[in-house]
């Protein structure tokens, strides 16, 4: 009889933590991630609030642990296409998308990407579009697994059937790992529990056109700012806008959140703190910058958060109460127009960089996943837990559990705690299975 096993869908920090707990307890864990690498959103972050640990420093070792754990089967670039429940057993079918790279041969040396005809021409998703990559790529240098993948939507050969006279990538690969013949394959799994850790999306800021996102290059989202300030990002951690250090930086919070007009009536829970962190990072890198944060309420509620907010305020960050009305151009700078509600009058604040704290929203495919697994959704669009108070990670389906931000927005500590909670729920099932089988 096989080892009791759990399927974890999603390889962000929630999925990673849940998989590690289950595997450490001696059960089998299948970790399915649709991107070429695990890591999820947390891998994109620079520092984490309120301790300012760098995100990579605390995440990548966990990723490595996952990659090497004897009880974890890591399935990246894969998607769960169906799940059937038969009594206490879930039968899942997983689609392995073709990487067009032989995983066993690829050494991750990167010569293929350097050679690619479309080098530096494809928008880099991991860097939130502020940098470019090749058609063949790894999402980030610390990826697990560190194996290259050909983007089928960007590759000249895969889209047009021809790539010059010769495959530059193939020629460059010393390991002969590139394989355009690869086809998608399917794997069938039998598991006793399923943990959904599919994460979240960020609201499209063009839904708030008054802020000029997509119009002005000086307006960016919080997650883009993370890549900009990250040492492993395209600017090596230098905060540059149009090649220059911004002197006036404005942060706008609640972009979409607490705003029923955009369909996001709820609070996204993390923006106040990551904005405080961003403000700190600007102060750290550009000591003489003028930093303004526009807010409605400052929600610094976690352990050490209020203290961090106090600290950031002491770092000469100007907190103005009021949600800006619009952003427009004046000369070569931007102007943020808002009512300062403490002054009771409108103010214009000039800016070289405007950072929008965009709302955390459910994944675009939440409805599909809900249907696939027979789950319910709450009015805000996230997955519905069995009971918000006492069963925050359980679902209406026995054996399926929720971890992380697909249930509602969360910061990292709460996500990790919830992922472990989901693991605990799963362990009850797995342990029962093990007792029955021995």
């Amino acid at each position, binding site marked *: 009889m096989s080892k009791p096993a759990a399927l974890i869908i999603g390889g962000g920090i929630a999925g990673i933590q849940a998989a590690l707990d289950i595997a450490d307890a001696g059960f089998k864990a299948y970790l399915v991630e649709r991107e070429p690498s695990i890591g999820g959103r947390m891998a994109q972050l620079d520092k984490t609030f309120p301790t300012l640990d760098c995100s990579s420093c605390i995440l990548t070792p966990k990723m490595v642990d996952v990659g090497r754990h004897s009880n974890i089967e890591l399935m990246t670039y894969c998607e769960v296409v169906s799940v059937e429940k038969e009594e206490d057993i879930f039968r899942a079918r997983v689609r392995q998308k073709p990487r067009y790279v032989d995983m066993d041969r690829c050494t991750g040396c990167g010569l293929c990407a350097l050679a690619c005809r479309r080098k530096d021409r494809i928008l880099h998703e991991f860097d939130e579009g502020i940098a470019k990559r090749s058609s063949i790529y790894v999402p980030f240098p610390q990826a697990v697994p560190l194996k290259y993948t050909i983007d089928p939507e960007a590759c000249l050969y895969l889209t047009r059937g021809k790539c010059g006279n010769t495959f530059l990538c193939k020629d460059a690969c010393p390991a002969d790992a590139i394989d355009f013949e690869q086809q998608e394959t399917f794997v069938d799994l039998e598991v006793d529990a399923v943990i959904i850790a599919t994460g979240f999306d960020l609201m499209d800021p063009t839904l708030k056109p008054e802020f000029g996102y997509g119009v002005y290059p000086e307006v960016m989202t919080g997650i883009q700012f993370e890549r900009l300030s990250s040492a492993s990002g395209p600017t090596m951690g230098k905060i540059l806008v149009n090649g220059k250090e911004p002197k006036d930086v404005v942060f706008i919070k609640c972009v979409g959140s607490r705003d029923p007009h955009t369909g996001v009536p709820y609070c996204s829970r993390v923006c106040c703190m990551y904005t405080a962190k961003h403000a700190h990072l600007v102060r750290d890198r550009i000591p003489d910058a003028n930093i*303004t944060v526009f807010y409605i309420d*400052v929600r610094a509620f976690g352990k050490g958060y209020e203290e961090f907010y*106090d600290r950031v*305020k*002491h*770092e*000469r*960050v*100007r*907190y*103005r*109460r009021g949600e800006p009305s619009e952003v427009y151009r004046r000369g070569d700078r931007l102007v943020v127009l808002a009512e*300062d509600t*403490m*002054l009771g009058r409108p*103010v214009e604040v000039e800016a070289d960089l405007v950072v929008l704290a965009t709302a955390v929203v459910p994944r675009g495919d939440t409805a599909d996943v809900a249907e696939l697994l027979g789950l319910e959704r709450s009015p805000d669009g996230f997955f519905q837990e069995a009971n918000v108070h006492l069963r925050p990670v359980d679902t209406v389906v026995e054996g399926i559990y929720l971890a992380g931000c697909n249930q509602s927005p969360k910061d990292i500590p709460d996500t990790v705690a919830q992922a472990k909670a989901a693991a605990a729920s799963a362990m009850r099932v797995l342990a029962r299975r093990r007792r029955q089988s021995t």
Partner: protein
Amino acid sequence: MKTQAMTEQLELYGCIQCGKCTGGCPVARKTTLNIRSLIYYMLVEPELKVDAHEELWDCTSCFTCVERCPKDVRPAELIIALRGQLVEGGRIPETIGAALMGTFRQGNPAGMAREDRSAWTDSREVKAAQDGCDLLYYIGCTPSYDIRAQPITRALARAFTVAGLDFGTLGIEESCCGNEIRRMGEEGLFEMLVEENGEMIRAVGASRMVTVSPHCFNTFKNEYGLDGIDVLHYTQLVAALIEQGKLELANEVNKRVTYHDPCFLGKQNRVYDEPRAILQAIPGVELIEMDRNRERSLCCEGGGGRMWAEGTNLEERLAFQRVQEAADTGAEILAVACPFCLLTLEDAVKVRGLEEQLRVMDIMELVNLSLGEE
């Protein structure tokens, strides 16, 4: 005025605009003074037009705002600093100017002659502290010169003698403590006083010093850096003397008494119990508390230079409200432990026509009664 330097110096950045400062400010209700709003300006605006803020002179420096701030910002210090800007530019009310000048020339804000500083003694023998003593008795300006306050000064001297303390005064060499001077924004003059007085006080070599006024007590205790010298307000010393049995309060004073906590004694230095202990030790005294007592005591509006500046709203005086509250308790005597409170509240009793029912007395006057005929 540019805001940034001062904002940094006073560490206003911690402010979260909760409004507890202005919310508790006793004068905010009657004038346009809004310290919370001023801090916000300092935080978000590059410049502030200080001249436009005449209401800065309304602050009584009761420090309720400082007491209440949850983030350890010291709002009252901003007012003092802004007053400093006004002083520097010479844009100050005439009466304030006179008080500063008087202090500079004669060592007291009233501008009375320095040679008359010992007039309160009424030709009693008082030892010169300069000759060495255990206890330095620092009198202060109002208790030295003001006829209404002098009996307190004398009563204390008598009590110290009865208790057998080896005490002395600085005589006519004593100068203003500078507490009010600093709060009027004249930092330079204040520093000069700190230096001169500090040197003189240290030279005495006493291990303890006692003051009549909580205002003097405050600055000596918290701003002079008199390490090794125990600075006491008289209520602390007298309460201890009673406790130790060195002062026998034999005579009954059969009165209903309520007590008004001076801001500089209570809120700012948390001396709440000793004045009450003294009153309760006086035979016959029935102590009745006003609702707003201790941490919630209402300022009499006599501090922060307000003895020499009328402020922007003369009509509504906090002292009026305060004496009414005292009268409403049914007390016959409103006891105080501060010469400024004594003067402002007594004046309010007169103006409000409450003299029939309420008398304002310093605690020391009551003690003196209980000690009996000299």
